[in-house]
């Protein structure tokens, strides 16, 4: 473990067999680390493998290849009982606040589930106290613990999801597009809550999103994914000021600027060559997918896919 890297992902691959001899290389050989207390943003278009990467990192999907070290321990090598204990340190906040809460559970069932699984509450009273504490922490009314998810608004539901993730006192949280299903006015509230919790609890985030301006706001460093591969990784300021990979440039040029004059004269960069999609024949076929996936450091902390370095 170098410096204070909490998370180290190496050569991570996740392929799905979609039948007919075809495989989808949803995540194809990605490498990165996250320092303790840091937020790494991960951006890319829909279907580029961001969510799959997040789920594979937490071992919700078994990886095809690669390693993921948490505090130096490769979690893919852990047997089930050790893995269960390890899950206390890593949690996830999901994209859709409507689908991520079991409609048959009350709020206290939802938040208390993790306490039950890991036997973190000694007594009924202790469990109730802890649930109320968590609700308070995310800015919800503790009196609502007996309510069902459908009684809450989208923003409130997302707060419940955050409280659930915090129940086990994790060190690392993957935020899988936690704000993209919310109203713009609510997005800021949730992002600020996440930042505040990070400061208070010393959390480390992997923040997956497709909204670049929000990612810039919350992330220390940003990684750009394209067709299952990581094409660029740099400090947020550096990435936004000095993008190198054509895909990153394309992404950045798509951010709307809240000034009509600049916006009107802005030139959108459209990628000219449509690269092959993530579906490949199992035997390996078209040449373009064999593209070099190594990242090369072009300046300090700024990594970019080898052909563009």
């Amino acid at each position, binding site marked *: 473990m170098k410096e204070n890297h909490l998370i180290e992902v190496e050569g991570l691959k996740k392929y799905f067999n979609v039948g007919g001899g075809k495989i989808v290389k949803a995540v194809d050989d990605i490498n990165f680390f996250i320092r303790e207390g840091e937020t790494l943003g991960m951006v890319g278009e829909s279907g580029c493998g961001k969510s799959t990467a997040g*789920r594979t990192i*937490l071992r*919700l999907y078994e990886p095809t290849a690669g390693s993921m070290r948490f505090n130096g321990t490769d979690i893919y090598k852990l047997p089930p009982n050790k*893995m*269960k*204990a390890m*899950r*206390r340190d*890593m*949690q*996830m906040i*999901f*994209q*859709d606040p409507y*689908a*991520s*809460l*079991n*409609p*048959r559970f009350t709020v206290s069932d939802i938040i208390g*589930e*993790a306490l039950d*699984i*890991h036997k973190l509450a000694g007594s009924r009273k202790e469990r109730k106290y802890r649930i109320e504490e968590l609700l308070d922490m995310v800015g*919800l*009314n503790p*009196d*609502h613990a*007996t*309510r*069902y998810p459908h*009684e*809450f608004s989208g923003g*409130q539901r997302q707060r419940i*999801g955050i409280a*659930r993730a915090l129940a*086990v006192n994790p060190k690392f949280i993957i935020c899988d597009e936690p704000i993209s299903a919310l109203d713009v006015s609510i997005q800021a509230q949730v992002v600020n809550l996440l930042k505040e919790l990070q400061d208070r609890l010393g959390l480390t985030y992997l923040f997956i999103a497709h909204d670049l301006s929000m990612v810039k706001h919350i992330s220390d460093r940003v990684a750009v994914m394209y067709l299952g591969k990581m094409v660029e990784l740099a400090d947020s300021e550096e990435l936004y000021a000095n993008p190198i990979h054509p895909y990153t440039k394309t992404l950045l040029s798509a951010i709307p600027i809240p000034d009509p004059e600049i916006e009107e004269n802005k030139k959108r960069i459209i990628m000219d060559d449509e690269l092959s999609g993530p579906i490949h024949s199992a035997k390996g076929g078209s040449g373009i997918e064999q593209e070099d996936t190594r990242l090369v450091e072009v300046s300090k902390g700024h990594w970019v896919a080898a052909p563009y370095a």
Partner: protein
Amino acid sequence: MAVNDTTLPNANVELSPEDFRKIGVDEKQAEVIQRESLSAWQDAWLRLRKNKLAMASLVVLVLIILAAIIGPFISKFNYYSNDLLNTNQPPSKEHWFGTDDLGRDMFVRTWMGARISLIVGLAAALIDLMIGVIYGGIMGFFGGRVDAIMNKFSEILYSIPYMLVTILLLVVFEPSIGTIILALTITGWINMSWIVRGEIMQLKNREYVLASRSMGAGSNRLLFRHLLPNAVGPIIVTLTLSVPNAIFSEAFLSFLGLGVQAPVASLGSMINDALTGWMYYPWRMLFPAILISLTMLAFNIFGDGLRDALDPKLK
């Protein structure tokens, strides 16, 4: 201010900070939910109660079940004693539904028959439920090869003509309630297992299931706390709709003479008995036929209502 005043109403108003006062909002109060807390079940019940037809069916079903339980006791006759001096009597003060060709009281026999039909229907449906949920749950939850093999097996079983199996079974074994239930459930559970399989497959990729897995939940917790409780709506609806199916199949088998044996009656065997003289003694067929139709109709309408109530999005 004059109506035709063209200047803006606030054009001449001088405002200073003192004119403003902060009312303030208690953030905690703003978030309080006023509506009464309702679980999914209470919600479904409210919707069901609004469906008049379904509620009427529920009342009819309750009445039929009550009558099947107490009906035979309120008459002074029993279902097996012959009275050869009073055969084929039309409905009268003495015999409310008339008598059959052996002088047995039709009122008592009709409710006894209903009792048998309901027992067979409910028992078959419950056994279907148990086997179907376990089998379908395993298929849906584990998926992959397990699912492929188990699903193929159920498809093969389903492709065997079910009447053939049933008739064979009833010829080999002594016809009794138990045998009929066995015959009905041998293929009856397959439908339920497919419903459960489909539901579980759909539900297991929901984010709340992933969330539970990310907390380290085991298969038992996922299946019994998350998946099955959320599949319970379609399961109950399928259950409700499979009862009339079983009742009908039992009546059909009894009609063919493969059902319960005399003197025990079921609605199907009574209709079969009445067939010989239905032109002359129509009441012998009328009462069991009406009852069986009413039971099936009520179960079907109630099942439909239940489906709408449990899953309002389908409507």
